[in-house]
């Protein structure tokens, strides 16, 4: 007893606790800073362009954003739920293949799928050409910017819903369906009365992820010239050079995000339903006709969302390889690699420190702070870009006032890597924190106590106990963050240091000029790397 007491009292010495505790506060502050900055804009005076924005841009952005979110939520729900149901609960040819293959569109950034579609459907493109050959001058049914944005984003975002709802259906089994059928409900009615309501918490969770991504999207809507908040923020800053207005727009967008988060809490429901009884995996054997229809449906989605666009990009890359590929690409690749690797290392390190610190001192304050620190994942990149640029620029100004005049140096922190890395950290900390945290929770506390009993503590404990056990999780975290940052557009575009073009930025620049074919090569690189986490994900779930 006495020994145990001694060990316990020897654990968090006050002097030692201050250091790690500081990390938690700092990280939480980083995540909260852009929100505070956006909030401060509410109280500060508006700049000259604000009345213009408020009158012309704000209503359009608001209406468009709401439409986009509603459309994407509806479409991802339909796609995600139907595909998840077929794969988890029905037997049809190709089921095992589609089980993982339907995750592939996750590897596609929206702006890549978007420009592949744009190229296919543009006036001089193959689809409209064929249309004119067939129907002459009849008007081509054009989706328009709104439809195109909704369709593209739905096709890249449905896997979030699919992945989570599939889990729900798989764990439900078909017992609920049997109960309903025993009482005379036809299969379709049984699905809507039983299976779907039982999967609601998962559906809401998946939908909220898709909606968050949709609110954060910049590349896709910009491509289709569909004005939403993210593009409006970009224009306020880069077109009208009004940071103040950009902040004010950000504030509204943050409001929308928070609304979505609150709605999620509201609709997720209190209970995590446990499935009724035994969950033996038995699937519904579909009659041949229906089974073929389901196979066709899954194939069609996969071809439209992945097969066709990837084929196009591959073909165009090969066609343009000789003309496009020059030393400039090595520079782009090097930039991309350095930014993504550097940020991934930094973010994963912070994630580990955060998790381990909170584990050592699991006070309610620390736990709340760690929740705030990982909240940044919900905040769109455009908001983070502005939200960090403004305070860092202000800090530089202050420093210049005190130092600049004496030394002759001009400090310009905002044009270095500070802003971009801070914004990355805020946005992607949650991505690294997830796997690290869940792996850490699987380490029993006695392991640490045993190590402390043997005199291993502090950094040596971290290095000799935590890191080796966490290695797979750390790898996952690094990979996920690396790929996310590689695909990332608005933060990189808006806050990259001068000359630091990346593959994603290159794709953006070429597609805004309508150079679809030339954008294929960098896009292909992004998609190929983007496949890595999808493979990881599908292997984990198997």
């Amino acid at each position, binding site marked *: 007893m006495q020994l145990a007491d001694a060990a316990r009292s020897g654990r968090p010495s006050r002097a030692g606790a201050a250091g790690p505790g500081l990390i938690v506060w700092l990280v939480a502050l980083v995540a909260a800073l852009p929100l505070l900055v956006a909030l401060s804009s509410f109280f500060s005076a508006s700049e000259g362009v604000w009345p213009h924005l408020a009158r012309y841009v704000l209503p359009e952005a608001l209406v468009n954003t709401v439409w986009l979110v509603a459309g994407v939520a509806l479409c991802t729900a339909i796609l995600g739920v139907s595909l998840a149901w077929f794969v988890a609960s029905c037997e049809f040819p190709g089921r095992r293949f589609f089980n993982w293959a339907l995750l592939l569109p996750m590897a596609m950034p929206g702006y890549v799928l978007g420009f592949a579609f744009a190229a296919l459907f543009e006036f001089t493109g193959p689809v409209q050409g064929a249309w004119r050959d067939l129907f002459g001058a009849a008007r081509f049914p054009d989706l328009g910017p709104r439809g195109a944005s909704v369709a593209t984003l739905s096709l890249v975002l449905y896997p979030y819903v699919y992945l989570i709802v599939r889990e729900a259906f798989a764990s439900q089994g078909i017992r609920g369906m*049997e*109960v*309903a059928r025993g009482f005379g409900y036809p*299969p379709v009615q049984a699905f809507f009365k039983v299976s779907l309501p039982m999967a609601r918490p998962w559906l809401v969770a998946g939908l909220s992820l898709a909606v968050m991504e949709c609110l954060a999207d910049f590349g896709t809507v910009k491509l289709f010239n569909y004005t939403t908040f993210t593009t409006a923020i970009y224009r306020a800053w880069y077109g009208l050079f009004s940071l103040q207005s950009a902040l004010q727009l950000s504030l509204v967008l943050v409001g929308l995000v928070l609304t979505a988060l609150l709605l999620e809490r509201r609709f997720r429901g209190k209970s995590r339903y446990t499935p*009724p*009884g035994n969950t033996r995996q038995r699937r519904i054997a579909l009659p041949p006709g229906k089974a073929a229809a389901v196979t066709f449906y899954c194939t069609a989605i996969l071809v439209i969302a992945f097969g066709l666009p990837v084929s196009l990009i591959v073909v165009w890359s090969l066609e343009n390889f000789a003309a496009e590929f020059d030393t400039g690409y090595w520079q782009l690749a090097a930039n991309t690699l350095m930014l993504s690797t550097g940020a991934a290392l930094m973010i994963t390190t912070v994630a580990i420190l955060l998790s381990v610190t909170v584990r050592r001192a699991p006070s309610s304050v620390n736990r709340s702070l760690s929740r705030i620190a990982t909240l940044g994942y919900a905040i769109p990149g455009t908001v983070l870009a502005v939200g960090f640029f403004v305070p860092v620029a202000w800090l530089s100004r202050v420093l210049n006032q005190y130092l600049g005049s004496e030394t002759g140096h001009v400090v310009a922190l905002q044009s270095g890597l500070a802003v971009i890395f801070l914004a990355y950290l805020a946005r992607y900390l949650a991505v690294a924190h997830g796997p690290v945290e869940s792996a850490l929770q699987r380490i029993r506390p006695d392991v640490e106590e045993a190590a402390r009993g043997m005199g291993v503590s502090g950094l040596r404990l971290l290095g000799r106990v935590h890191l080796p056990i966490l290695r797979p999780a750390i790898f996952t975290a690094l990979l996920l963050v690396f790929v996310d940052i590689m695909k990332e557009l608005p933060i990189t575009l808006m806050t990259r240091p001068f000359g630091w073009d990346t593959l994603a930025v290159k794709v953006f620049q070429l597609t805004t000029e309508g150079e679809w074919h030339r954008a294929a090569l960098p896009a292909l690189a992004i998609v190929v790397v983007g496949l890595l986490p999808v493979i990881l994900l599908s292997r984990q779930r198997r």
Partner: protein
Amino acid sequence: MLMLSHVACAYGAEPVLNDVSFELERAHIGCILGPSGCGKTTLLRCIAGFERVTRGEIVAAGVSLSSADRHVPAEQRRIGMVFQDYALLPHLTAMKNVEFGLRGMPSADRKARAMQFLEQVGLKDFARRFPHELSGGQQQRVAIARAMAPRPDLLLMDEPFSNLDAGLRQSLGQEMRELLKSLGATALIATHDHHDAFSMADDAGVLHHGRLLQWDTSYRLYHRPADRFVADFVGKGVWMPGRVSAADTVEIETGSATGSMTASFPVGAEVDLLLRPDDVVHDDDSPLTAEVVQKLFKGSEFLYELRLPSGARLLSSVPSHHNHAVGESIGIRLETAHMVVFPRLDPHPSPIRG
């Protein structure tokens, strides 16, 4: 009411049911007994319409439901099923679960009927609880109320008492029988415990490796088993080797056992005689003694395992005021009114089972 003739069912190449035939009369309670894996759940699922049969026919109320080339979908059968795991819908309250089965009724009638059945199973005060807020026994009773509320033509129950303790099991079994009888319901129950069959069933059958070995009253299953497996599975007992000396007598090592035999054997036939614990009676005056090897207190009685001087074992059920220590020798006497006799099995089966 329910008739199965030569029903077979297979999962892929693996046969699960083979040539199962029996008939259950209207308002009777039937019981399918069998060890786990014998196919009893599959049998219920075939009747409910969740599995297709590969051969034979299932007829209920004069309508052919299943045969090799005909399959009425589950939702058109009007057969209620209580699943082994209850399968309550977790997102609905107890009340809503019962209402769920009352499809197409006006809302007011539905609520009244659901409440009536919840009351009948003693859960009136738990109507607003969700399944996870109910105990195992309560969940099960909700499942039963849900299955019975639509007054199905036939009610199927898969191991309805498997998650209950022995005491509750028996009392609920009798309550259930009364409830079913008062509603005039026809029910078929699958269970691995012959006590369930004894307390509830009018007719019962033993299923083994997908075959129905005997379909009879539970009394006859116990006293007139048609098969060694049935004899072993229904109740405890010990096989004693013996020789038939008369139409009603078998000579075994403890002497002559007399009673009506399950089958007639020629004099001199080598047989095995099943001695049930109640065939071996404790009698202090009896010259025959055996040593207590093990004892199991069952409340009103002891189940003694006894060793004869030859080393052979016997089971004896003795009123519990006769408390004897392990190692003590006690007097016993055979009282074999019903003798379960089968031709001698070689090698002789293991002495004690049950």
